Structure formats: C-alpha cells, structure tokens
C-alpha cells in the first residue's frame, strides 16, 4: 500500500514537470506561508503554472511537496484556548490539546461535550470565537474549509457524505489536490488537455489501488448514493486518503458500521498509521478508542477533562465521574 499511495504521487509530479516547461513561473504567494522551506522542490512550480485566463489566487499546495521537503515536526495539530458559543450557549470553552505526528489520537467525551464543534472549528466549518489552531506550525484559525483542507488537514463526516450522483471512481478522482485539469482552460484547450489526460491516468491508477486497499474496488462503477452506510464510510475514508493528508480527522468513523466492516476499517487505519499518517478520531465507542489510540483526549462540557495514554484515562477518576452512567468498559 505504501508504494500504492506514494508511487503515483511521484508520477503525478513527473507529469506536471513534463508540462512545466511552457509556463514556468513559480509565483505561489501562499506557498511561503504554507511550508516556508520548499519552494525550490522539483515540480513545485508546475502545478501552479500561471493561469493565463483566470485570476485564481493560488492557495493550494500539494501534499507531495510538503512531504518531500519537510521532516515532519512532532506536533501536527496544536489547539490552544479554543472557544465557540452559539447564541448564549458555550459549546467549546478554553479547549487546548495537541496531536502528534504519526499517532492515532482519540477524542472522546459524553454527548454534548463539544467534540463536533471542536472538529468544526478546526476544519473551518465554524469560525472560533477565540483561541488558535495551528497546523504543521502554521496558524490556520478562521481559514475557510477549503484552505484548511488544501494544507493537508482533511476530515470525514459523522454521517458519511458521499457525492451520491457520482460514481465511487469519480468520488475518489475528485479528491487529489492540485489537479491541473481543475483549471477551466486546461480542460478545454486542445493542446493543454494532454497534460490533464496524463495526470488523470496516473490518478486513476492510484484510485484503483486505493479502492483495492479499502476493498471496495468491486463497487467502483456504482453511484455512491447506492452504497450501504458502511460502504459509504469506507468510501469517505478512501476519498480522504486520496488527498494524501498530513492529518485525517475522522468523525465517528464506525457509526452505523457492522462489526466485520469495523474490523476492516480499523485495520486500514492502523496500516496507514504505520505508513506515517496521523489520525484524530472522534468516536463514541469507548472500547475502540481505548484499544486503538495511542493518545486519548477527553472533553467534558466544552473543555479538556483529561488526556494521556488509554490506560491512564481508563483509571482517571474525573473521566469515570464524567461518564457516570455511560459504559466505560
């Protein structure tokens, strides 16, 4: 799988490099903010080949570049003093935590503890009232969801959001960042389209490998709306992996998934962690969090109650109190 995810990346950037000769001005204003060091990475300029017809602010930066240039810092995500209220109701109050690179971190808490709001604030669905969110060292507080996602922080949804009238293949093809064909003129102008087609071929290969990895390749040609709930969860994760994220936020990835599929999903998450991916998981199922996460964050009434390794959390008095009435074992 490792080669499965990475090799096509190289291919993609090669394709890009091949077409880079024509318009080679590396004016990626945001790239400086995003990564700081890697403007010089080979292939870095091609993706941003200046768009002659439209004034598209270039905010995206490919995961490939980031990965290649950077020795990942230990802390992927740093949330400090996050606050969010709706009307008079404080949903998140002074929440702080960090997610280390290469871990599976669990975020738990009783219903209404503010987990989902925290997720929404991190991913840009809500703008926090206060506090900061830093991702890979960069302050991403208050950015738009697409800006945050394009920096490598990608989420899934509590209720899987497939793109119902697109096939599973199309769902996955959508995800990779910086597709040259996402520029209108490149899709249309005959000469320019060649590069698009080449990249599409490379992406297609990667899509099939990802589908095989998640064992949903037999569904590839179906419309996503026809999938079962569990299959949608797999689809959503596969789609998120197609962005090659630095950190994947999974919102209750096992909700509504049957036990067989649950095992499969968890295995995949472990495989991917072993390959160096980082996960932050919100999950109701205590056992899952305790068995599968290296680090557990417990939220209660909008703020941090406890954090630490599962064993520690399991025996934490305050956590047990907060969950009184809920089954910890």
């Amino acid at each position, binding site marked *: 799988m490792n080669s499965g995810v990475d090799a096509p990346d190289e291919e993609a950037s090669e394709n890009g490099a091949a077409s880079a000769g024509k318009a080679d001005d590396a004016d990626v204003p945001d790239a400086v903010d995003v990564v700081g060091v890697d403007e010089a990475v080979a292939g870095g300029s091609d993706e941003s080949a200046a768009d002659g017809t439209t004034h598209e602010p270039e905010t995206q930066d490919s995961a490939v570049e980031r990965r290649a240039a950077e020795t990942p810092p230990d802390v992927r995500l740093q949330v400090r003093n996050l606050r969010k209220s709706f009307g008079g109701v404080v949903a998140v109050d002074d929440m702080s935590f960090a997610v280390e690179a290469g871990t599976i971190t669990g975020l738990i808490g009783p219903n209404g503890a503010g987990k989902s709001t925290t997720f929404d604030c991190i991913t840009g669905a809500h703008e926090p009232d206060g506090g900061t969110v830093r991702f890979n060292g960069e302050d991403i507080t208050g950015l738009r969801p697409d800006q945050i996602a394009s920096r490598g922080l990608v989420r899934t*949804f509590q209720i899987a959001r497939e793109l119902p009238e697109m096939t599973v293949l199309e769902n996955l093809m959508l995800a990779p960042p910086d597709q040259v064909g996402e520029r209108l003129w490149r899709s249309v102008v005959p000469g320019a389209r060649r590069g698009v087609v080449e990249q599409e*071929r490379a992406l297609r290969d990667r899509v099939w490998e990802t589908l095989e990895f998640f064992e949903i390749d037999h569904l590839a040609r179906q419309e996503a709306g026809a999938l079962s709930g569990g299959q949608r969860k797999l689809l959503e994760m596969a789609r998120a992996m197609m962005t090659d994220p630095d950190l994947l936020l999974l919102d209750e990835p096992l909700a509504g998934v049957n036990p067989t599929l649950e095992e499969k999903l968890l295995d995949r998450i472990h495989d991917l962690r072993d390959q160096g991916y980082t996960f932050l998981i919100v999950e109701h199922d205590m056992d899952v969090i305790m068995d599968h996460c290296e680090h557990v964050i417990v939220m209660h009434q909008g703020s941090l109650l406890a954090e630490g390794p599962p064993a520690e959390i399991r025996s934490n008095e305050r956590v047990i109190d907060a969950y009184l009435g809920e089954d910890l074992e």
Partner: protein
Amino acid sequence: MTHRLRPDGGARGSGDADREPSGVRGSGGDASGSDDDDRGSGDGGRGTPRGKSAAGAVRDAVERTLGGNDLAVVLATLGAIYLLFTLFVLVANDFEITTSTINAIASTLRLLTFFAASYAVLALALNLHWGYTGLFNIGVAGFMAVGVYTMGLLSSPPDATSGMGLGLPLPIGIIGGMVAAALVGLIAALPALRLEADYLAIVTLGLSEIIRLTMNSGQLSSWTVETFGFGTGGGSGLNLPARPTDALFEGGAGEALLATLTGMGVRRSIVVDAAYLFVVIAFVVGVYWLLSRVGASPFGRVLKAIRDDELVARSLGKDTRLFKIKVFMLGCALMGLGGILWQGSYGYVNPNSFRPIVTFYVFVAVIIGGSGSNAGSIVGSILFVGLLFEGPRQFGGIVQNAMELGDAPATFAGAVGPLTGLDPTPLLAYGLENISALQFVLLGVVLIVIIQRRPDGVLGHRTETAAAVDLGERPAAGAAPDASRDSATDAGSASGSGGDADE
C-alpha cells in the same frame, strides 16, 4: 432509421481520450456491454421509478437499438420529429406532392431545426449551471438580452436612421455580447452564489426582469449626436445587423447557386435561411464539444461535486467559490451567444423577446432531456420545440382545417353552453382557436408530470462521467483489463458481502 449507429471502434481503440471526448462518456469506450450492466445496477440502487410499463419497455428497446450512443439518440429524435411534421404538412396539403408542398415541408423542418438548435445552445448553457453545478439560474432571458443588445449596440450601423450602434465588425459584436453577458453574470455571481438555490432563483429572475425593464425604458432609447445614434431603442426595439450568411447570396457563386435552386422551384427564403441554419448548428456542435470537454474533466468533476454536496468539495480543499464564479460566467456567456444566434438573427429585437417565459421554455427543454446530461439537453430541446412549442400549433391548424367546425364561439361561455345539448363542436372549435393558451397549459402539465414522475428526464438516468479518461480501465499489472475486472468482481463479492449486509 438509424439502427446501426453504434459507437465506432476506431476512436475508441486508440484510447486517446483527449482527442475524442464523446468516446469517453456514455459508453465507457468498451463494447463488451459491461457498461450497460453498470448503468442498470446504478439505476436499481437509486430506486429510480422504472416500472415495467409499456413506456419503459419502449424506452429500453430504443436504448438497446441505439446502444446508448448520444449522436444516434439525437438524430433519431430529430428524425422522428421530422417525420411527424412532414406528416403534418402532407395532411394539410391533402398529400398532394407539389413544389409548394415540398417547399412547405422544407420550410417547416428548417424552422423546427432552427428553434431546436437555438434552444439547444441555451439548454446546454443552462445545463452547465443547473444540471452540472446545481446553480438554479432562472434569469436566462436576461443574459440573452444582454448578449443580443450588446451585440446590436456594438455592431449596428452608427447612423441614427438605420441603426443605433457603433458599427464594429460582427465578430467583435458577438464576442462583446458574450463578454457582457459573462460580466453581468459575474456581477450577479459574486454575491449571489453563496445563496441557497431558491434564493438564487429569485435573484436571477429579478435581475432578468430588471434587465428587460431597463431595455424597455425610453430613457436609454437613444442619444443622437448629428447622424450618430446610440441607444437601446426602448420599447420600440433595436435594429440589428443582418445575418452574415445573407451576404453569401449577393453576387458570386452564392448568387448563382441561389438562382439555380430557385430555378428548380425552391423558395428563395428557404435557401437563405438554411445557410444561416447551418451556422447555428455548427455553434450547437461547438458548444456541445466545449461543454462535453468541460464536463469530462477534473473541472467538471468539481462542478458535479458542488451540485451533489458543496461542503464535501470544500472539505477536500476545492475553492468552490472560484469554480462557481467561473462556471456561472461561462454559462452566462453561452446564454448571451444563444440569444445572439436566435433573437439576434431577425435584424431587429425588442425587449418583449426576453420575458421570463423564455427562461421557462429553456428549463422545460433541460428537464425533458434530464438535467446533468449534455446530450439530453439537445434531445430535450428537439422534443420541446417539436412536441410542445411548434407541434400543438401545427396540429391545431390541421384539425381546424380538416374538420370544418365553423366559426369558433367568441367566448368560453359560448363554447360550453351547447354542451348541455351534447354538442361538443363549439368547444372543440373554441379550443382550436385558442390553442396557444392550451399549449401553455400543456407545457405546465408536462413540467409537473416530468418533475413528479421522471425527474431524470424522458431518457432516464444518464451518466456522463466526469473524467478525462475512462475510469473503468484498471491498472492491472500484466493481466488484460477484462480479466482483472472479472477476478476483482469475484473477490469483491466475497469481501463485499459484509459491507452489503450491514444495513
């Protein structure tokens, strides 16, 4: 009639999807029939109401015969409509094949094709907005008006008597019209695209009415300086440049050809109009080609994602605002073009041509063909023009002539009164006399029935894959694609049973 128009193997075999976008879409570029299977299973899953009714059986038969080839479907539809109208004309002329009958047939078919082609351009543009991206724009008429009026103002002759324009060359006028429509679209899009679909509908309808009222205003109708005039003409309309094809028949080979044809008894107007018709058809092909390419690309993929669930697209890092603005501008430019090709071709235009009803016509065309399908938009335009726009009128005329119903009653009361005496003739005569009203009623009813029962359009659920390559092709190392697919299906059905069973 076009039985054997199956997807030809040549374009497919090369695998060069870049060169042949239509080969990628529709039939997935492989004749093994596996695509039909896919479509079938997709349909089943979506729960599309697809009973084994007679209509369904006919549709299936047609689908099988035509092999899902878009061009074949379009040509077959057109052929069927041609047949119908030929029949109309023949009936009206008591099946006497004379020069005048043939002229009448030709002229009827030309008119039909002209309307169908004009609507096709507009429907394709609207399909880009609504079918592809989910942007519910019901201001089509307004963008058409901007296109036509801009073209007129740029290209009509600059003397105050015959024109109110700048006298620039026509291509500049056309491009200017498209750019102007796109810019008006941009102004509307910048704030409006974050609105919910129904709000966008009201804003665009309001905008189109504002545009029409502005064109209708006497205040902008003219500024005349000496012999130089400029203005919209207000309610009395604006003179437009003549169709460029008309000049082909003034002198040279064109005039000779025209003389020969008229010598053979062909009506002059048929020849001259037909020349322009070919131009419009060429534009339809061009717009279809353009939009197919847009659809079958990563750009089109993002559009589809915006339509399906915009938050997902944003959560995957797509700046959907930019996509929406671009696609809105492109669609508006094409609406401007559609307006120019159609309303711009009469040498004269007035604001009444851009009432909101025109927008709804285009909508009906898109809905009939099934929103989200480019080929469907063209088929829908043909069916709309044939069966709803021109058909009832022709049919009514024929029945009226054939039945000799006498004078129609002046009012509805006069028509229903005799019903008490079991005499339906006056009502029939009244109905035929007022067939244009009934035609609109029919239009409304068709709209309701389609949206209720066949929301995917009369052609059923169509998929036009949003990718520049055939996604179904698997990168199986060493193995032939088909073999790998089969084995994958086997493996899949084993491992997938858990997933299937979980609900």
